[in-house]
């Protein structure tokens, strides 16, 4: 089980993702402000525990970070 933090382009996107995770019964899903070490800008993120990052359409997903020994590592990004 790994710990992930997903960031979004809107608060509503984060809420949609969070609700979907809750529905799927994903462990320790929590909606909160984006941690400072992830970004210097503000916004909403969802932290959760799972065996792999959960990609999802229709929720304005920005990026997913994995909490690892090296700190938070970006494992998925939609920035282009």
């Amino acid at each position, binding site marked *: 089980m790994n710990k992930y933090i997903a960031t979004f382009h809107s*608060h509503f996107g984060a809420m949609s993702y969070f609700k979907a995770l809750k529905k799927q019964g994903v462990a320790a899903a929590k909606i909160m402000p984006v941690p400072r070490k992830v970004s210097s800008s503000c916004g909403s993120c969802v932290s959760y525990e799972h065996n792999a990052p959960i990609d999802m359409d229709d929720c304005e997903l920005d990026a997913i970070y994995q909490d690892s020994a090296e700190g938070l590592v970006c494992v998925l990004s939609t920035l282009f």
Partner: protein
Amino acid sequence: MLKKLAMPLVGVLAAIISLALVALGNPGNMGFCTACFLRDSAGAVGLHGAAAVQYLRPEVIGLVLGAFLISMARKEFAPRGGSAPITRFVLGFALMIGALIFLGCPTRMMLRIAGGDLNAIVGLFGFAAGIFGGIFFLNKGYSLKRTYEVAKTDGLLAPIVALILLALLIIVPGILNFSVQGPGSLRAPMWVALAAGLILGGAGFISRLCFIAGIRDSVLFRNFSMLGAFVAFIIVILVGNLILGSFNLGFEGQPVAHTDGLWNFMGMVLVGLCSVLLGGCPFRQVVLAGGGNSDSAITVLGMVAGAAFAHNFGMASSAEGVTNNGMVGFGVAFLVVIFIAIFNTFGKNRQRGGA
């Protein structure tokens, strides 16, 4: 423990700098009010003709440059933009109409509260109401769509413009307008003001200090860390004012303020609502602009334009109270903001990346 104290300590730092700026010459309860100083700066370059509020405030220049330098030093300078720029310009414009009806942005509202100005408590209720309104739209799906990575020059322009303005202020101050009386004539020494701006810009960038985030995050996430900064800021200013003898409890006779409760309330409703729809208060927008966010830079330009229009068309309040033009301007601005909120909230197709 240290982590928990970090935000309140930033609030304490901002409060001490505010007190020092007022003690050294800035107008009463004004500290580093971003809205007031953008308004003064607009007047300094001739965008409006209100003779009492003209001065190119070094604090604002310092905020942009401080945030820029720290973001470069931490390798966090991130040129981003492209999220509904004109919408942000208009929201910044409307925010300024509200701020100049109340006479202050969220920073000054807190400074006024801690100075004993009870009109600002009325403003705080309006501010909270505006934030709740904004949160309603956020929860229903409000989004100005995603930001993109943009060319480095796009992010560098705000600090470059700040540097050019600083050069004008130092080298050829004669071409700028300087108030000889009124709030614009009250100023801390230039280098002190610049240093204060640099420190606050850097600290604001590192801490993400934002004067709406305290209430917003408490409601949205039950996260109270930013509220800690908000409360610490008010307490230190309050204590400082009591020590310096500048605490004056009441509605009447407050510096650069009026006593019209309804419009103190309504002005801050508009400020709170626009700030949430923009994702940050005026102070935060200026700091983000320094960090390379061109959406925030556009928002700041919107606020500058709003300030110019507010004074050119007699919409800004004064110690005498609210003007008729101000009430009409508020109505128009409020309707436009509600229009923006509704159309960016309902009936949208949400795609991957929000594209």
